């Protein structure tokens, strides 16, 4: 008897469903993508009990005639590609022709559709993959898909579903992704008969983000522009330095309108932010990459969650560059408004902790009273003038920074309190000074070049072929960083020089670390990248500490210098240098306002 048999069609669909339809959210994703590919301008989603009992997606897209509707339920039937050649340049979201039959095979499924100019529509009812009823129906133009009792015939899969709440949240997240990816489409989301989300058609991404996340987040986003590097077009919005989350949940990346996860892009993001992000935090991004469809392969993952780039290095570089530019460009803006980073709804706790011991350091208070009238007769009113100094560095700062802050005092010999248009700003004097010294020292060392110390014994070491290739290509960068390295046979290198600030006596393991570290970094790294840790350590020792009482003039200079920094928002270790407590938050705390309107 033959052991190998062809699987019945339904079983094959269910196997495919295992890949494509993982949970209700993946059904929503497939259906919304179909609607988008059908040119919908409005998509309504309705779910009940986490989408397990009912899930309905209604669009006003092009619809299908009866033959097409029936065909769409066959496996590998699609309107989106025709030949293998199309696979290389996929412009639509879907293309596998698997979603509908897969979903239909694991649920009680109902499809109604009508083309705009057709007299009557079609209604098809499928149960567990078997077409039960096909009949005429009268409905609005477009397509409506209703999925009931998901996985009713696959109890094993059903057991893997989480609670209804979790599944609802997953669906909502999926919806957010799609809504961000397609601001031109209106979305409504009804959950258990309650209208959760109503997004009108938005003119641009900006408006869509405002509708979804409110003004508060929007104000702290920076626009991204393409670095003008060839074929990769980058757009969207990213969080300012200091705006970060504990998880990757708000790190959204779209490639040609498709929400994806890509290690390449993630690495680019991390490198682009570099010290602007605290360790272990993730950026908030709405990053849109538009590439020639032929240079991206989406046919990697059945749910198309991952993509492959033909030129990953190019993509990463483009991401890094545009993020860097956006962050640096955002600096002026930031200074102008003097908005602090982490305005992210400060939880009640830290605020209480920071504000409770309100006692202005006596020494400082005295100093303020004594010196203020003499040094700056304008007192606390109006913009403060710089003391009479005209070194070029300060001129530069002076021009860029309208003095929209007033120093109130120093709290606990550590936090400089300032007032700006939005409320209260707290500056950590140690972190601020660290940042200033860090940039100063790094600049100085960059100008000087990295001194490099020859080793007594040159050492040879082997690398894996991939790492070796990388080293070959980046030899000149390594040289600039003060590492004397040259080829010494296939995949073998000789190292005879190390940056002078390094103490390591094991160049080989050091090089392995460098290769790992820099490979994920960018090719345009500063030659001092390897020294940043050392520099940060050095300046930490020299910076003013907590409990160092600062006189008024010192505080003023500190703030001015901080504003002149390239990345003033955080110290070299990534901790924030300043925190803003907005007037709105204060009003809320004092019960003057019930909640911040978003």
């Amino acid at each position, binding site marked *: 008897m033959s052991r190998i048999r062809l699987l019945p069609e339904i079983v094959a669909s269910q196997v495919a469903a295992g890949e494509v339809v993982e949970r209700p959210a993946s059904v929503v994703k497939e259906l919304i993508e179909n609607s988008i590919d059908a040119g919908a301008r409005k998509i309504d989603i309705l779910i009940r009990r986490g989408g397990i009992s009912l899930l309905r997606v209604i669009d006003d897209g092009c619809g299908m005639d009866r033959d097409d509707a029936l065909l769409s339920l066959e496996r590998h039937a699609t309107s989106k590609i025709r030949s293998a050649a199309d696979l290389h340049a996929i412009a639509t979201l879907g293309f596998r022709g698997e979603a509908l039959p897969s979903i239909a095979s694991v649920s009680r499924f109902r499809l109604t559709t009508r083309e705009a100019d057709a007299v009557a529509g079609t209604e098809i009812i499928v149960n567990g993959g078997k077409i039960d009823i096909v009949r005429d129906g009268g409905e609005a133009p477009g397509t409506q898909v209703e999925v009931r009792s998901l996985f009713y015939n696959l109890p094993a899969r059903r057991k893997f579903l989480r609670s209804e709440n979790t599944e609802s949240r997953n669906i909502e997240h999926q919806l957010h992704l799609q809504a961000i990816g397609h601001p031109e489409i209106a979305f409504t989301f009804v959950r258990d008969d309650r209208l959760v989300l109503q997004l009108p058609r938005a003119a641009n991404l900006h408006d869509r983000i405002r509708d979804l996340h409110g003004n508060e987040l929007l104000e702290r986003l920076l626009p991204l522009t393409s670095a003008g590097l060839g074929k990769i077009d980058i757009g969207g919005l990213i969080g300012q330095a200091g705006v970060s989350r504990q998880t990757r949940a708000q790190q959204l990346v779209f490639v040609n309108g498709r929400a994806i996860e890509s290690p390449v892009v993630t690495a680019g993001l991390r490198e682009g932010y570099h010290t602007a992000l605290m360790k272990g935090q993730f950026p908030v991004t709405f990053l849109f990459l538009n590439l020639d469809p032929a240079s991206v392969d989406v046919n990697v993952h059945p749910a198309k969650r991952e993509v492959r780039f033909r030129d990953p290095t190019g993509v990463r570089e483009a991401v890094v560059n545009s993020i860097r530019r956006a962050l640096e460009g955002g600096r002026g803006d930031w200074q102008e408004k003097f908005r602090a980073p982490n305005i992210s709804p400060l939880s009640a706790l830290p605020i209480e902790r920071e504000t409770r011991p309100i006692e202005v350091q006596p020494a400082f208070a005295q100093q303020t009273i004594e010196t203020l009238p003499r040094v700056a007769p304008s007192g606390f009113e109006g913009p403060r003038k710089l003391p009479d100094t005209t070194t070029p560095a300060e001129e530069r700062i002076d021009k860029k920074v309208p003095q929209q802050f007033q120093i109130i005092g120093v709290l606990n010999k550590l936090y400089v309190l300032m007032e700006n248009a939005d409320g209260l700003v707290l500056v950590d004097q140690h972190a601020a000074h660290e940042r200033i010294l860090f940039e100063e*020292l790094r600049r*100085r*060392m960059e*100008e*000087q*070049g*990295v*001194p*490099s*110390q*020859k*080793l*007594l*014994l040159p050492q040879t070491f082997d690398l894996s072929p991939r790492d070796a290739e990388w080293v070959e290509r980046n030899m000149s960068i390594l*040289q*600039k960083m*003060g590492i*004397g390295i040259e080829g010494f046979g296939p995949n073998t290198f000789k190292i005879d*020089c190390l*940056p*002078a*600030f390094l*103490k*390591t*006596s*094991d*160049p080989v*393991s*050091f090089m392995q670390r460098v290769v790992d570290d820099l490979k994920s970094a960018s090719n345009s790294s500063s030659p001092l990248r390897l*020294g940043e840790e050392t520099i940060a350590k*050095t300046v930490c020792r020299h910076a003013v500490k907590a409990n160092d009482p600062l006189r008024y003039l010192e505080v003023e200079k500190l703030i001015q210098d901080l504003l002149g920094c390239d990345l003033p928002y955080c110290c070299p270790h990534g901790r924030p240098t300043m925190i803003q407590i907005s007037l709105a938050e204060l009003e809320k705390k004092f019960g003057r306002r019930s909640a911040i309107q978003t």
Partner: protein
Amino acid sequence: MKFSVTKEKLLEGLQQVQNVVSTRTTLPILSNVLLQANGNEVHLTTTDLDVGVRGSFEAQVEKEGATTLPARRLFNIIRELPSSEIQFDVDGKNTASIRSGQSFFKILGLPEEEFPPLPKFEGAKVVTIRQKDLRDGLRKTSYAISTDETRYVLNGVLFSFKENKLTLVATDGRRLAMLDIELEFPRSHEADIIVPTKAVTELQRLLAEDGEVKVSMGSGQIAFDLNNTLLVSKLIEGNYPNYKQVIPSEAKERVTLERETFLNSLRRVSLLASDKSNSIKLNFSKNNIEITANTPEVGEAKESLPVAYKGRDLSIAFNPEFLMAPLRNLIEDEVFLDLIDEMSPGVLKIQTPFLYVLMPMRISA
């Protein structure tokens, strides 16, 4: 246990052993010093399990016995005692009563049995060295020990007993110091061992101008017996790098320098090589060395040193710290600096068998 002793003798004894005591340890007994009263002596022992020191002082022992007491605390108390006569009385529960003049202290100790014993050296190879020679040798080499812990074999001084001489070597991969001591020992005692930094530091403190030190080499351990004090240490396991191959076989140019003068000039000029990674440059021309350093946005320094130099013009950059370290630790009036070219090692020598190889720096623009 009961004894009386003078403050000076007790302090001296404690000073010899207390450095080894670990300040941070999870094992409380390691912060204690072991006191053992026998005959007319009290022995003191401390250890951090890697290095151990045993010393003694004379005392009038009324009742023999042993206990352990917190070393640092004991030392601080003894130092402050008002009178020079001290009575020590330890009861069966390891509680020590210390009386001196009008003062009385009671300190709680731990039982003697908990104290880890020092290793035994039976059947070990023994070599005798003059204390002065070893002290000098360590002083002239130990500053080059690597402080980076990624290559632990470099965290100590190599003692190489070969062909009737003891060669001491220390290096951190950028510079290397080496010195020979003539010595008589049987061929069977030839060995290469690495003594860890902590033991080297302690040894330098204990070694005196006169007398001899008996070195016993066991497996993985070494003991230095300095008559009344014993230092034992674990050895660093592993192979020391082949230091001979870094010593240049030739020298193109040689310049004779007055050590003090050269060191003082370097010290002054290096004030403007402020950041640690900065270099100092030596420009050699006929009968002159110009030493320069500069730090952008800070300033620069320059100093000329007349020397007998007849070679070609040459500029070479060094880490000032690396160049000054041997000069500080040598005692000779005259040193020789051998050079080949800008990118080859410089070698510092003196009349006796010593050399210091130093790699130059390269300033990439």
